[in-house]
């Protein structure tokens, strides 16, 4: 019995030592190496951003924004759907309150990701790290950060942001600038990149979760109907998006609430 206990204690202390080692080497290596790793992982993301933000820039041009305004919006907002919804509202000369609500709804998934990240922060980490990490939560940057083990390292995220965020901002400005120089054929082709990106986000989860698959199909139908039906088609695109989101997501949550275990 004593022997067993001794063995157990040995194993435990060994495990603790390893954990402490890992912790220390992790902490020693982290800041600089994690930053470099983040910069490297940000490259493919940045390339993807260039194509999609170019498409977003075309939208910005269509609603009358200058390349600098489009650049500024992308640098500060870092959001595909959110900026798209915002630009569309700018084009419609929407009220300031409407653009705020539209941005909120279109970016609601970042709220969810931020919640998920809050569960993975090293206890006692400074509020500045929390704020800077929050600044560029996107589908991709959240994805690569959350896929790593253990507590999130702020410097890994900073590295990835440093590579990817400029691509997003310059890509948008380029789209606004070159959108007017390119032949209509190419503008037409580039402008669907954004929708392709949306599809790549909403379609794959439907394979595992049939509720999502049916919900997406229902959304397409409802959105199409809303653009044709009297009265509701008279509302702005942003308002329709808000209404449909609250109705459909609320309905799905009421009818098909999710089990805490199946959540990611």
């Amino acid at each position, binding site marked *: 019995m004593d022997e067993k206990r001794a063995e157990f204690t040995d194993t435990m202390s060994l495990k603790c030592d390893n954990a402490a080692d890992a912790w220390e080497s992790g902490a020693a290596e982290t800041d600089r190496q994690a930053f470099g790793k983040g910069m490297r992982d940000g490259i493919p993301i940045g390339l993807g951003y260039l194509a999609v933000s170019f498409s977003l820039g075309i939208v910005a041009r269509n609603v009358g924004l200058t390349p600098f305004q489009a650049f500024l919006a992308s640098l*500060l907002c870092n959001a595909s759907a*959110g900026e798209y919804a915002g630009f569309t509202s700018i084009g419609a000369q929407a009220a300031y309150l409407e653009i705020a609500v539209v941005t909120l709804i279109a970016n609601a998934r970042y709220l969810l990701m931020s919640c998920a990240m809050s569960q993975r922060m090293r206890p006692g980490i400074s509020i500045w790290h929390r704020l800077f990490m929050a600044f560029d939560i996107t589908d991709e940057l959240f994805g690569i950060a959350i896929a790593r083990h253990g507590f999130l390292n702020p410097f890994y995220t900073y590295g990835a942001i440093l590579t990817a965020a400029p691509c997003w901002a310059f890509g948008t400005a380029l789209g606004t600038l070159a959108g007017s120089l390119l032949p209509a054929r190419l503008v037409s082709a580039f402008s669907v990149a954004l929708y392709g990106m949306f*599809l790549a986000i909403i379609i794959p989860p439907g394979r595992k979760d049939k509720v999502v698959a049916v919900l997406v199909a229902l959304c397409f139908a409802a959105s199409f109907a809303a653009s044709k039906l009297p009265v509701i088609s008279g509302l702005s695109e942003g308002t329709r998006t808000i209404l449909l989101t609250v109705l459909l997501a609320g309905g799905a949550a009421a009818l098909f609430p999710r089990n805490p275990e199946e959540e990611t």
Partner: protein
Amino acid sequence: MHNPYFYILIMAGVSFAIRALPLTLIRRQIRNRFIRSFLYYVPYVTLAVMTFPAILHATQSPAAGLLALCAGVIAAWLGADLFRVAVLCCGIVLAAEFFLV
């Protein structure tokens, strides 16, 4: 006439607040099942609503937009990543409009 810079400032403020508030304020798990489910479904609904029928008006010919939508849905279902789906949609529109426009 509204000021575009004011619009951009509002967009930036809301975008930042929505990302920063949970990360700075939440130190525990959210328990309410309806809220969790609602938050889970919101991104799919919003993006789906913004994609269709808008994609039909983004292209010169609505038929090309529809083709891009179908191709994008199939490619994403089969597991193509974000960049590939986006490029495929562009390629489809470019090819289709050679015949349609």
